[in-house]
């Protein structure tokens, strides 16, 4: 009985642990065990948060990063679905191109960001294109996997009821592959977010990623830490929402 209560309290204790670590760090720096010039006081990091909102326009930057992420993910989802359907419908094309898509999915595309800079200029377009390019291949693979996993008998039911190709698509293929498609959407958003923020930081342009670079160049340590914490928080919230959505969808099955 008490064991289960411990289990229930575990997530809260996790939060508590992080708070305790921050407090310990605060104490360690105050006691000069840790160099205050490399690691800022946790209290100062917290204190710098309002400054980020007022002086550094965090909300506007957040909107920009989110906009770029959604643009890249939406494009990847639409294009990935289309490619996925084409590859599923024509098995020869699938045999021919799926290995290349797998290579593309495994390749560290973000490393080629200098190349994208040359291709698309140093602007938001480059950021969106890199996000799109990184998210596209995983979405294609998931879509094809989803369609290929549909049980043959469900398609036979459709044929025996003489469904038109459009009816087969909307009434059987899409609902049957929906869990995979949703996983594809989640992958698209995750890959897009990572790459958008990463590239913003690397090329010093745009939203939240750039803010971190800027603050660190000004040697504003508490601000840098606070901004990093903010980005982590935003992405964690983002993943929590996606997970909840996916679980809701999965429960009916």
């Amino acid at each position, binding site marked *: 009985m008490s064991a289960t209560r411990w289990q229930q309290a575990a997530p809260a204790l996790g939060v508590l642990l992080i708070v305790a670590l921050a407090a310990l760090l605060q104490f360690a720096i105050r006691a000069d065990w840790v160099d205050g010039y490399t690691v800022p006081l946790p209290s100062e990091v917290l204190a710098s948060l309002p400054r980020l909102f007022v002086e550094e326009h965090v909300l506007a930057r957040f909107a920009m990063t989110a906009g770029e992420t959604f643009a890249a993910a939406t494009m990847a989802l639409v294009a990935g679905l289309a490619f996925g359907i084409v590859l599923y419908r024509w098995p020869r094309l699938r*045999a021919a*191109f799926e290995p290349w898509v797998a290579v593309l999915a495994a390749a*560290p595309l973000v490393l080629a960001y*200098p*190349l994208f800079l*040359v291709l698309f200029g140093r602007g938001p377009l480059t950021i969106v294109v890199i996000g799109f390019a990184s998210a596209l291949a995983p979405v294609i693979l998931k879509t094809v996997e989803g369609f290929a996993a549909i049980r043959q008998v469900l398609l036979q039911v459709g044929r025996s009821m003489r469904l038109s190709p459009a009816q087969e698509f909307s009434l059987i293929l899409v609902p049957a592959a929906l869990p995979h498609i949703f996983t594809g959407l989640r992958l698209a958003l995750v890959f897009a*977010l990572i790459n958008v923020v990463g590239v913003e930081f*690397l090329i010093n342009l745009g939203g939240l990623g750039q803010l971190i670079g800027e603050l660190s160049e000004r040697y504003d340590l508490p601000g*840098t830490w606070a901004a990093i914490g903010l980005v982590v928080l935003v992405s*964690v919230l983002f993943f929590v929402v996606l997970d909840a959505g996916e679980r809701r969808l999965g429960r009916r099955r």
Partner: protein
Amino acid sequence: MSQTLLPRLVATILLLVAWQAMALSGLLFRDVVPPLQAIASGVGGVLGDSGFYANLAITGFELAVALVLGGAGGLIAGLALGGSRFLSQALERWLNYLGPTPKIILFPVLIMMFGVGAGSKMAMGAVSCFFPIAISVAAGVRGVDPKLLQVGRSLRAGRLQMLTKIYLPAMLAPLVNGARLGFGVALIGVLLAETKLSNQGVGFLIMQAYQRFDMPRMYGLLLVTVAFAAAVNIATDRLAIRLRGSRVRANK
């Protein structure tokens, strides 16, 4: 096999021809899409450049240190989380959510802590590979067949013996998978860090080629890097298959 080989070959040739046509026509991305022979000579130039190997050695060393440190940390954290339901419920959620966040944003902080030299790149790689390794080790511990654990306990194996004789061998697949994921993200972490701020390493060379607008060399560097990563991946796979194979033979 031959039935899939032919379409793959055709697809590869088609892609190469399309690239070449785009490069030669100069209609799209002129000068940025060099013809295949230029890329080939770029690859050749990279491979024939002794400076490249010196920089590759630096990146390789940073990567190796990052993998050892991050891997050890990930292994310990994964074993702890996988072994304790309490720890797992308290902290694993954080690990899962932190896993996919962009690690490169930690780089400024790592520079503060470990300097502008190789130290911060190693730290970058270590932080990157910590997460996938910890996550797959934790899942691997939980996935070990309970029957094997009962066998171990019934033979009164000690804690360390349980770990080395039962858990680790039984977890070969997730361990290899974690190592491979970790290698991939550590490589990206190290290279990205080098492109952002450094004066040596392959990432630095890529940035240099970009600033000189030497497209064939940039393609050459990227291709050689990807080939290097793919070779390590294949070698890891082979090793895992060999290990598993010897185990199957031993069981007979």
